[in-house]
Each structure stands twice: as structure tokens, then as C-alpha cells.
């Protein structure tokens, strides 16, 4: 019974995520895909709630939630002040605006109010999920822009992490299993190169080969699943390498441990030992690196989005910096931070489920 709810919620979440991927890749649209998205979100939330209550993590999660809230508040305040105090406003164009128009524009964005009032307006807007109006895209709210850009960025990051685990873990296991043979050496040489290769070089080479020479894949934009392949591969290369190296060292550690020797001594079959004992235990450190990996993929997606012209949040951030679109910069900074904080919390919770030795409190 104790284990049942974990298995069931896990199965529901994994199943609905797989369905979502399926719908996305085969471009199904309409009621079913969006329903599945909600199913996975809701089942995830329910599963998490049951888990939190059953494992007595309520206090821990509340503490983390409160910390996250304070952190967000500090980040919002600091970013707000930073951007307000910068010399040179977004409306300093080459052509000086007539004073009346300038006053009007500033009134529209509340820029002529006292700072404390602007700040109050900003924070109360934040609590309502209103991030203000964009300076650059007239008539569009920041929330709207971000909502439009979010799916591309999330998909890009999700698929990059997915292929990182799908390719990286087996690669690391094989390398460890063939320890000190040419297979191991080749895999590790590949992995260390993968960490050292800059994104734009990988992107350039992939585009040159697949888009310009063979002409089989599109070089840019984000319209159909074939557009996903090159950006996801480029973004995924570094996580693949990191995971492969970590899996390998972790498997090597576990293989030498006493309980594996016991398992062999008990006369268990090779498959049982490898999959049930070695693999499961060696994946724990791999899971622990997913927090930093998510941050890594986030940073990486900036360059990828610029390179492949993916209409996502990273490209918006880069452009909003050049446009001095302060509300958009603020909103994106906050959103990126929320995602990172939330992802870290989930990773920590997952970690405690997978490894009962870890006690969160």
C-alpha cells in the first residue's frame, strides 16, 4: 500500500507526459492534447500532495515555499530598482519627442509617479499576474508576450533534457561496463569534447551539414517537429556529455560496493544485479545533477534560440535588452527565476522519493 500510490501517480504522470510528447510530435491539436496536458499537471499535483502529506514533508515544503516567495520578492524589488535607476529611458529615441507627447507616454506607463507608487503598482500587479505593458510592442502586455513565447522555450528545454537522459545514461552505463576498453575511451573522449564544444559551433556545423549541404532539415524557426531536431540536438549535447560522465563514474562506484558483491554472492543473475541493483542505485547521483542541468539548459537555450531563430523567451530577453524594454526584461527575469526555483524543489522532492536514505526536514 505504501508503495502503491507512488507507482500509480508515477505511471499516470509518465503516461500523460508520453502522450503529450506523442501529440506534440505528430502535431495533433484540439481537445485531447490539451486535456492530456491538464491530466498530467493535475495528476502531478495530486501525486505530489499525497506524497508530501504521507512523507511528512508538509513543513519542509511550506518552508521552501516561503523561502521561494521571499526570494522572488527580493529579486523583483532588486530588478525593479536596478532598471528604474538606469540612466537613459526606453523613450530616448534619436529624435527628441515633443514634451507633451513624452509626458503622455510616461503617464501611460506610470513613469511620472513617485518611485514608491510605481513600485507599489508594480508589486500589486505582480500578485495579480500582471507584469505590465511592454515598451516596445505597443499595446501588448508582458504576460501576453511571455505566454506566447513560453511553449517553444519549454519544449526546447524539455526535449533537450529528455534526449540527454535517453542518450547519456546508456552511454555512461556502457562505458562503465566496458571499463578501460576502447569503447569506454571513445565514449569518454566524446563526452569531454561535448562539454568543451561551444553551442554556436555545434549549431553551425549541424546547420552546414544537415540544412545547407544535405538539405534535409530546416536551419531555423520552430514550426513543426522537424524544426525541433537541430536546436534540441545542439542544446542537448552538453547535458548528454555531463550525464554520461556522471553515470559512468557512479556505476563504477556502485559496482565496487559491498551490496553488489553480496548480490553476486547470493547467486543472482547478471540481469537482475545490473538492472535492479547497479542501475537503480547509480542513477541517484545522476538525478541530483538535474537541478544544475536545468539551469544549464536554460542558459544554453538563449544562444540556441538566437541561432535557430526560435521564437522563445530567451530570444525575447536578448531583444528586450537591446530595445531597453524594461518591463519585458523584468518579467522574463522573474519567470526564469520562478522556473529554476520550482525545478530545484521538484528535484529535491524526487531525490527523497528515490533515495530513502535522504531525509528532508
Amino acid at each position, binding site marked *: 500500500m505504501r508503495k502503491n500510490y507512488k507507482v500509480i501517480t508515477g505511471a499516470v504522470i509518465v503516461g500523460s507526459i508520453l502522450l503529450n510528447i506523442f501529440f506534440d510530435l505528430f502535431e495533433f491539436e484540439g481537445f485531447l492534447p490539451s486535456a492530456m496536458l491538464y491530466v498530467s499537471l493535475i495528476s502531478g499535483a495530486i501525486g505530489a500532495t499525497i506524497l508530501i502529506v504521507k512523507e511528512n514533508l508538509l513543513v519542509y515544503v511550506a518552508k521552501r515555499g516561503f*523561502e521561494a516567495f521571499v526570494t522572488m520578492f527580493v529579486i523583483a524589488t532588486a530588478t525593479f530598482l*536596478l532598471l528604474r535607476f538606469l540612466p537613459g529611458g526606453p523613450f530616448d529615441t534619436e529624435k527628441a519627442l515633443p514634451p507633451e507627447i513624452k509626458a503622455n507616454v510616461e503617464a501611460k506607463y506610470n513613469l511620472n509617479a513617485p518611485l514608491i507608487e510605481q513600485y507599489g503598482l508594480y508589486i500589486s500587479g505582480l500578485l495579480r499576474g500582471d507584469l505590465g505593458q511592454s515598451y516596445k510592442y505597443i499595446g501588448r502586455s508582458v504576460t501576453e508576450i511571455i505566454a506566447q513565447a513560453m511553449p517553444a522555450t519549454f519544449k526546447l528545454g524539455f526535449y533537450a533534457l529528455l534526449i540527454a537522459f535517453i542518450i547519456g545514461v546508456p552511454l555512461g552505463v556502457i562505458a562503465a561496463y566496458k571499463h578501460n576498453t576502447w569503447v569506454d575511451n571513445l565514449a569518454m573522449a566524446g563526452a569531454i569534447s561535448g562539454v568543451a564544444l561551444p553551442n554556436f559551433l555545434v549549431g553551425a556545423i549541424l546547420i552546414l551539414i544537415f540544412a545547407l549541404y544535405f538539405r534535409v532539415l530546416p536551419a531555423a524557426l520552430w514550426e513543426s517537429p522537424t524544426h525541433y531536431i537541430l536546436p534540441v540536438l545542439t542544446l542537448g549535447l552538453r547535458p548528454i556529455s555531463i550525464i554520461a560522465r556522471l553515470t559512468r563514474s557512479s556505476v563504477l562506484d556502485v559496482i565496487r560496493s559491498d551490496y553488489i558483491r553480496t548480490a553476486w554472492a547470493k547467486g543472482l543473475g547478471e540481469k537482475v544485479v545490473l538492472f535492479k541493483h547497479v542501475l537503480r542505485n547509480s542513477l541517484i547521483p545522476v538525478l541530483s545533477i538535474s537541478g544544475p542541468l536545468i539551469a544549464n539548459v536554460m542558459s544554453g537555450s538563449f544562444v540556441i534560440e538566437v541561432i535557430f531563430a526560435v521564437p522563445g523567451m530567451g530570444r525575447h530577453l536578448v531583444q528586450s535588452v537591446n530595445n531597453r524594454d524594461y518591463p519585458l526584461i523584468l518579467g522574463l527575469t522573474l519567470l526564469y*527565476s520562478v522556473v529554476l526555483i520550482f525545478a530545484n524543489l521538484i528535484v529535491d522532492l524526487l531525490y527523497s522519493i528515490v533515495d530513502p536514505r535522504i531525509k528532508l526536514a
Partner: protein
Amino acid sequence: MSQSATTDQKTMLTSTSGKAESLWADAWKRLKKNKASVVSGIFILIMCFIALFAKQIQPYPFDKQDITQILEGPSATHWLGTDNLGRDLLSRLIYGARMSMAVAIFTAFVSLFIGAVYGAISGWFGGKVDAIMMRSMDILYSIPALVLMILVMVAFGSVELFDNPELKAMTGIFLALSIVGWVSVARLVRGQVLQVKEMQYVEAAFAMGASQFGIVWKHIFPNILGPIIVTLTFQIPANVLFESFLSFIGLGLQPPFSSWGVLANEGWRSLRNYPHLIISPGLAIFMTMLAFNLFGDGLRDAFDPKLKNR
């Protein structure tokens, strides 16, 4: 205990077993055995040399335009070809090493210093001081690195401090990288200090009446220097990459000045027809990062042979 006695003991032991050497000599010995690390170390030294004497080494001035030789492929006169203004790519690459290496190495040392001091204070005093210092650091940690860097670059970009655009970009990138870099060092140092401060030799030093600063400086730091140096070696390549990111997305240095990120950005724009323009700065970054990573791996194994194969 007198100095000569320990030295005598040491030589005696060395002559009999050949194993009782200081941690540093031991590490050096192990490092020398690791071929990849030695080659990487030499490569790093060469890169530093190139960066230091960039102005003397470059075959042409890095910003000299030659309209008669635009966008040429590699040839005997221009080994790596020329860009869209007829500037020699090799010279720009060599000159760019100056910026990339300087920022990377300098930043690593500054974040090391700030992080070490912060982490040591936090770990040594513990309790409330530790809690407050760590919480405030967590705030920085919850902003993705590149977003934080971009914010710093935006803020710094609108401050008119320097007339020299190269110096200005360099200071900006340097600030952006340091603000991100010191956090991981501080975490590491704090963890190490927490461990080491429970050791008996620290207690002994305390009992002998050593000052707090003296204990941290003389007894704790030398013992945690190994992991710190290893972190440093891994921070430098990360910095090289971040510099190129920032310049690539147009926030760092601007042409006609040169860094590897600037060259990558310029090369990217003419990828379709002149791929050689992005390949060479890309490879320069790749080889430098590879060298630092391999060297760092070797260094880590050398300091802690138990960790080998990680």
C-alpha cells in the same frame, strides 16, 4: 618542533620508502604522469603566452582593413582567411585571445578571492551568520546565470565610466562573470571549512591560543587549497564560454575590437557562404576549454587519487 627535525625525518623516510612526500610534491608527481594533463598544461601556457604578446605576434594589425582581399579563404598570406572588411582572421583570433583569456583568468581569481572569504566567514562562524549569509547567496543562485549576467551587462552598459570601449566591455563582462562565479566557490569553501574545522589539529591550534584569523589562514586554508584550485581550473573554461556567449548575443565587446565571441558573432552572420569565419573562433574556444577541462581532471585526480575515474 624545530624545522630541521622534520626535514631530517622526511629525508630519512624518503630514502627508505620513497613515499613520504608532501601532498604537493605527491600531487605534482601524479600530475606529471597524466599525459593528457601535461599536454593540456603546455597548451594553456602557449595560449597565455599568445594572449600576453598578442600585439607582437599578430601577423597584421587586428583591425587593418584591406578592401582588395575581402572574405578570402585560407591562403599563404592569410592563413585563416579574411573577413568581410578584409581583416586577417588569424590576427583577429590572436588579438581576441587577449580579451577572452584575460577576462576568464582574472575573473576566476577574483571570484576565488571573494568566494573564499565569504565562504570561510560563513563556514567558520556558523549559526546565524552562516544562515543569513547562505540565504542571501541563495537569492543570487536562483537567478539563472546568464539572466543575471545580462542584467549586469544592461546596468553596466548605461554607466559612462570609461572612454575606451575595449576597457569598458572588459570591465562589464568581468563584473557580470564575477557576480555569478563567486557563488559556487563560496559554497565549496564553506562546505570544506565546516568539515575541516572539526578536525583535531584545529582544536589543537585553538588550545595553543592561535587567533581565529590565524587558524583559518594558516591551518584551514592550506588544507582545503586542493579542491579550491581544482574549482578554479573548471571556472576558467566556463568563463571563456560565458564571455563568448555575451559577445555572441551582442552584449559584450563590439567590433572592430576582437574577442572569440565577437568573431563567432561575425562568423555566424555569414555562415551560409563563408563558414570558415565561424569555424576558427569556435575551434579556438573548443580547444581552450578542452585543455582546461582535461587539466582540471588531471589536477583533481592528482590531489585526490581516490576520486579517480569520476
